[in-house]
């Protein structure tokens, strides 16, 4: 069990919050339509804009999660903090899932809007893709063998470098894209009304709250893993002995029968 009173309250609030998000995203808000001044045609993203209410929070959660991993990595290197090591690992795992969701929802949105699933010249796409691949490497490092401390330090080095690498990739792709680009990436600028803006803000808030809830649970799993790794054998032995004490042992049984058999 990794639940507690806090996570249960947060979890049930999130369930209600998800219903509200669904209502805001699909019922309350209008599709994105505008009248083109020149031609008089109706343009915009229409209902595809509703994908943004899951895409943007995913992206924000992904980058927040790896920021937390970087902070945790620094704390591990400075203080050899076990707590932060578990936080860094937990956050990176959630961040990887969020990065994958960002890429998936982004591609699905891009197909009708940009008429392509993928664009090589968009800096955000490329950066997120490399972030996702680097995060897989980070998680692989966390699964390597070795002592708990060695693994914590190794992961911390990789976790910090992950952020450095993401920044370098972002800068170099930016430069590369600005050279090869045919036109600057045009995210059709959505005309933001009050309710749309509110839904955006709410979806981001919801995403971060969901991240926190998952982080708490995942942290506790990490904690249990660490405990099991360290004390698993001791605990199993202790449990065995306790069990043995409850029953007369073979020796005791022989003794009590007088040893005549």
């Amino acid at each position, binding site marked *: *069990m*990794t*639940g507690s009173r806090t996570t249960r309250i947060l979890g049930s609030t999130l369930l209600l919050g998800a219903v509200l998000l669904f209502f805001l995203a699909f019922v309350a808000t209008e*599709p994105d339509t505008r009248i083109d001044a020149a031609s008089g045609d109706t343009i915009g993203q*229409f*209902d*595809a804009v*509703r*994908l943004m209410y*899951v*895409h943007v929070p*995913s992206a924000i959660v992904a980058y927040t999660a790896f920021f937390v991993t970087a902070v945790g990595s620094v704390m591990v290197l400075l203080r*050899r*903090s*076990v*707590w932060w090591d578990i936080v860094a690992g937990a956050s990176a795992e*959630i961040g990887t*899932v969020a990065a*994958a*969701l960002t890429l*998936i*929802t982004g591609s*699905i*949105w891009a*197909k*009708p809007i940009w008429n392509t699933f993928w664009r090589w010249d968009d800096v955000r796409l490329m950066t997120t893709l490399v972030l996702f691949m680097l995060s897989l490497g980070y998680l692989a490092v966390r699964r390597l063998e070795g002592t*708990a*401390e060695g693994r*914590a330090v190794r992961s911390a080095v990789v976790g910090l470098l992950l952020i450095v690498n993401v920044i370098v990739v972002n800068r170099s792709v930016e430069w590369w894209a600005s050279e090869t680009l045919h036109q600057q990436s045009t995210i059709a600028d959505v005309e933001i009304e009050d309710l749309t803006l509110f839904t955006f803000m709410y979806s981001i808030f919801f995403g971060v709250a*969901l991240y926190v809830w*998952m982080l708490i*649970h*995942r*942290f*506790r*799993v990490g*904690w*249990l*893993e*660490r*405990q*099991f*790794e*360290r*004390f*698993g054998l001791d*605990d*199993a032995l*202790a*449990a065995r002995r306790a069990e043995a004490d409850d029953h007369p042992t073979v020796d005791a049984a022989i003794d009590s029968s007088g040893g005549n058999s």
Partner: protein
Amino acid sequence: MTHVGYLIAGWGSVVTISFAYGVSVIVRGRKLAEKVPEDRRRWMTTKDATEIGVS
């Protein structure tokens, strides 16, 4: 409503993957909790790092 297929695919994948991940974390936690005795489950309260196996 336009783009219904895209909306189902996008929202569907987010809901499915998040839910599956959440469930997997909770299941992992339950399985491990069975193997770890009660007194070692005091997360966030342990100050002493040596207590959880790192010096």
